[in-house]
């Protein structure tokens, strides 16, 4: 695993969030939040429940219009672009929603083939063929392809949704709690899959998670959202050393220590 952020020259910034303010009624979720995501890195975003992680993700991918501030992806402000150009940029994203969000009226293969037909310009036969490739990459068995999403287990739904997110070979992958609700073995397999794909496809990954094991095994950098801002963003060591009660409880609580040891053992073995 290579960490491009360690290189001497500063890597290109693909997502730039500046002075972001999100307010729902009287409740302020983000208050002048700044965040950079660099090309080729896996950025883990953590924070307590309700700290606005998913809201940040939705602001970045343009599903939510922020109250104030700017979000630039590939140097463009999505919400200011005309529809056609916006769609062009959105094709360079892949988004994995928390519960998969597979279209329930289509089979798994059709779910993956849909963006290939609509945006990739493939005919149905070629798209189905390519969908098989993506499903294979995501590690799904072959007989899952023709099933409806309701027939899949939680882990398989996550994999199928990942296959759909990867359909157009995106440059940035947004993952919203990809390992939530998975058993530890499936979660570990998903982490490995993510690493392999990132290294092979050169993805930039924006990962919202609660899973400490995922943070320790796959993330190059971690951003902590607390008190309506990004409290600290940097490598795990830097973040874990931050003098903040929440961060200390998070990384040095019993679960945090266990995950750290597990990651160390894993690193020694490989």
């Amino acid at each position: 695993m290579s960490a491009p952020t360690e290189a001497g020259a500063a890597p290109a910034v693909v997502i730039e969030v500046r002075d972001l303010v999100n307010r729902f009624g009287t409740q302020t979720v983000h208050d002048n939040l700044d965040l950079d995501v660099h090309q080729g890195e896996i950025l883990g975003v953590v924070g307590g429940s309700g700290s606005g992680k998913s809201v940040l993700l939705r602001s970045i991918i343009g599903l939510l219009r922020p109250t104030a501030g700017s979000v630039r992806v590939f140097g463009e402000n999505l919400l200011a672009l005309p529809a056609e150009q916006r769609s062009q940029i959105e094709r360079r994203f892949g988004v994995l929603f928390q519960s998969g969000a597979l279209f329930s009226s289509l089979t798994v293969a059709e779910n993956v083939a849909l963006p290939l037909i609509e945006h990739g310009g493939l005919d149905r036969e070629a798209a189905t063929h390519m969908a098989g490739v993506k499903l294979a990459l995501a590690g799904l068995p072959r007989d899952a392809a023709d099933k409806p999403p309701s027939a899949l287990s939680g882990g398989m739904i996550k994999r199928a949704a990942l296959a759909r997110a990867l359909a157009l070979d995106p440059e940035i992958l947004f993952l919203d709690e990809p390992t939530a609700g998975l058993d530890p073995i499936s979660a570990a397999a998903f982490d490995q899959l993510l690493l392999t794909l990132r290294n092979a496809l050169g993805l930039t990954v924006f990962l919202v998670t609660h899973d400490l094991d995922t943070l320790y095994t796959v993330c190059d950098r971690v951003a902590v959202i607390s008190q309506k801002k990004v409290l600290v963003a940097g490598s795990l060591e830097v973040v874990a050393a931050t003098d903040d009660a929440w961060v200390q409880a998070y990384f040095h609580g019993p679960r945090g220590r266990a995950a750290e040891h597990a990651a160390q053992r894993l690193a020694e073995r490989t």
Partner: protein
Amino acid sequence: MTATAPQFAELDLATTPACLRIRGDWTLPHYAALEQALLGLRGRVDAQTSIDLDGVHRLDTAGAALLVDLLGADRLRDLAHEAASWPPARRALLDTVASALREYRRQPRPKPPPAWSQLLEQVGVTVANLYDQTLQLLGFIGLTLETLARCLWHPRRWRMTSLVAHVEQIGLDAVPIVVLLSFLVGAVVAFLGATVLADFGASIYTVDLVAISFLREFGVLLTAILLAGRTASAFTAQIGSMKSREEIDAIRTLGLDPMELLVLPRVLALLISLPLLSFLAMLAGIVGGAMVCIFALDITPAMFLSMLHTDTEVRHFLVGMSKAPVFAFLIAVIGCLEGFRVSGSAQSVGAHTTSSVVQSIFVVILVDAVAALFFMELGW
């Protein structure tokens, strides 16, 4: 000597063994062109052919998958391991795609059955479903009656709060729409009657037409159809979403009976509401007819009332009202049963809601037709 589509791939037969030079952008936007290029090469590339990948400009998973199709997963994996001059990211990509596809394609592909067997299966499944559904409905009716009988003797188990809330939702909230609709249909029936009866010089009997049709049929039928659309769907959606979120299971594990908690209050609420609404519908329909008679046919209100009084017997009203509880029970039971039949997904909630509305309207009209025959034979 070169082969097809030099833009992407070129088979050089001058060297021994032959050399396949792959070049250009092997990416998704060029998928169709790449497929064409591969078509010309298929069968001409074998294990001896040496492969030169140095000319490849860009490569993504689509391109890598096409290379797997051409060279085979094992060959490509070996290539990815050997080609030391390649950037590591590209070798990793080829290796990942080749390994994943090797594993994937080793699994047998399930074959769909032929069309005729699918058709037969569909017919069979539909018939079996219809049978199951009828059986389930009868079973559910029995279960509801049994629960009702059991709870009747224990006033402490009457869910009064739930019952009153449902009566408000089903009955009170539906008053405006039921009254308005019946009023309008009453006016339409009066116009229709006036037009036809005028030819016989019997316009005055429009009063009888409106009164008898609303007391016997339209009042209760209109209300039942409206509530089938409004209430049966609501029951199915409420119980169905509870089912899909495992709330029904939670009720069971708490040692409670979903029939008693969810079904009985709904059935009883509809049994109370539908007759009352039917009565209002009858009144509204007759008033609608009266308006037409008064304003369009020059029948005075006093005349209308006296006709109503002398010509309309009370048995018409009783026949109409006797059907109301039957309709109410059927609508409530179908709505609740469809809710319990929901499984898992949000799509299932929608499908069963549609099904409950269609079924309850069908059953209401069927029972009404049978009842009309029955009452006619008896001469009531």
